[in-house]
């Protein structure tokens, strides 16, 4: 089409995604509150979404599929957070806690 190339370098977009993913990972591994752990996981999913959308526009073979996939991801994320939070509520009701370290019934 002769249009000018997208001015933001692909690498920068991917780097943002990678950094967000690592932040989310760190949070998921270290935070003690179960809600925050779930939130961190959402953050990781989001980072993946950024990559999907980036590649849909800037990849080797640009296509709308990337965007469609990101939509699916969001749906799954929504389902996940809904079930996750429901579990959390049930757990809180049972154990009066929402801390990850208390969920250790499988300890050796």
């Amino acid at each position, binding site marked *: 089409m002769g249009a000018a190339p997208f001015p933001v370098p692909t690498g920068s977009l991917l780097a943002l995604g990678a950094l967000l993913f690592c932040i989310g990972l760190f949070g998921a591994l270290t935070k003690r509150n179960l809600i925050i752990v779930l939130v961190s996981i959402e953050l990781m999913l989001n980072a993946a979404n950024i990559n999907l959308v980036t590649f849909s526009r800037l990849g080797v073979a640009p296509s709308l599929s990337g965007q469609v996939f990101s939509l699916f991801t969001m749906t799954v994320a929504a389902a996940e957070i809904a079930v996750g939070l429901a579990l959390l509520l049930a757990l809180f009701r049972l154990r009066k806690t929402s801390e990850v370290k208390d969920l250790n019934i499988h300890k*050796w």
Partner: protein
Amino acid sequence: MVQYAWLVPFLPLVAYVFLLVLGRKAAEGLVAGVSVILTAVSFVLSLFIFQAVGNNPHGNNTYVFHWLTVGNRVFDVGFQVTHLNALMLVVVTLVSTLVFLFSKGYMHKDDRFPVFYQYLNLFVFSMLALVISLNLLQLYIFWEMVGLCSYLLVGFWYFKPEAALAAKKSFIVTRIGDTGMFAGIVLLFLATGSFDYSTIFSAVAHGTLHIGWLSNNGVITLTALLIFAGAVGKSAQFPLHVWLPDAMEGPTPVSALIHAATMVAAGVYLVARTFPLFQASTGATTTVAWIGAITALMASLIALTQRDIKRVIAYSTMSQLGYMMMALGVGAYAYGIFHLMTHAFFKALLFLAAGSVIHAVDTQDLFEMGGLRKKMPVTTYTFLAGALALAGIVPFAGFWSKDDILSATLQSGHPVLYWFGLIAAFCTAFYIFRVFFLTFTGKPRVEEKYEHAHEGSWVMKLPLVVLAVFATIAGFFNSPVNHYGLERYLFADFASGTAGVVVKENVGLMAFSVAVGLLGILLAALMYWRPAFGGEKLSKALSIPYIISFRKFFFDEIYTFVIVGGGKVIAAIVDFVDRYIIDGIVSLLSWIGSVFGTMLKYTQDGQVQTYSAIAAFGVLIFIAIAVFTVGGVL
């Protein structure tokens, strides 16, 4: 007649089965009666066979049955009656019959009287079957069977710890020799493809024995020595002699039958039976002669000082068996067998007489007896006959056979062995008359034992008398009187009509050995009958030799320490290795496994974040590998 030879061992077997069926509660009279009668029938049969074989020396004497196939080889069983075998049949059945009769009195009121007769019948069957075995395999089978019977009978009074130990010892010590014999038989089979005597002898004659890894001469010497090992064990020759004295823990009739007249002579019989094999190897015959001579001398030296009447006679047996071995070793085939026969009579007699004494005074210690001549005249005079025979005093049986052996030794060019034999003969005369004087003459040493001493019933006296007769006259079976009939009878087994040395009469030598015997008796009389000088004093003067003799050259102690102790140490080491090293390694492996498991267990802390951290690391590693191996990253 010869084809019925199987009946001879079969009748005692019938008696055995019959007694087995009768059980443990059978009446003594019935048990003993059946045994005596059947054995007596066997004896009569044996006499007929003896005569038949003599009349028709080259007739068919072999009967074969098929037993087992190994590859393309066939093991046969059957029986064969050579002149040697026929003689053995007669001797064994005669002594057995008399011992059966004697036991009726001796074992009277024993709890297990029928069992005793069961065992004895089984023994007689095995012994007779051994004697007429067709081949070495069959001989080995019955060889072990008589060993088993010996074990059972030595341990007959199982509740006595000494009897239990003695039974075990007798079996194991003979087993050592038997194992060698087993190997010898196997090697002969490999070399000739047969266990049959005839095949083996013809192979020896043709020098065609051959095993892949051993030459003809090697096979002959090796197998002869291995078979001799069996004979050494069974005949209680040095160095496997230690079991025989202990075996005296068994009832005295057992000692008379098994440990004097028959089973222990089986070793001599074995060497005689395989005589051509031994003759083919100088090394083997020399070994046999020396072992025999050493045993004869050593045993007679030990017998000088023993206090137990049965042990003295046991050592005497050992010594006499040594003579027989020496005879076979120097090639005096006929005289070894001749002595075997005479010895069977006079030694059975001595044992039974000793049994009669023990039965009367209820002790075996010579120094608790004395003066029994007045109370037990029959026993005294029969014992005297046996003692004179043993001492080799003319004209008693032992004189003829022993003197033949000594002459043959000298004649075959073994002066050293001759002197061994002569010294042993002196000792023999001394110790047996030491026993005689201590037991039957002088004053009673323990009054109460003397008080209730009495002669046994006729069942005990009759065998003594019969045996005394034989001990007196048996020597004439091979004497100028019948032109050395036995010698000629035995030589008929050999195609050449003769075997080994044939003794030429030498009156000087005869007189000399009789003089030696008389000297021994004189010394014994001086010390124990009419104490001219105190035996005590002499004992003190010779205290060190006395102790060596009294403690039997310390063989028991040495064996106990070196062999039994060594074996136990090895066993303990093996057990230790097994429990702590081999099983220890196994336990170590399982411990390592469990340590790893425990370590891994602690990673399961139940924290989701720990698990996901580990998973993240895993992913990181995979990403890193993927990224860096693609290249161009760094």
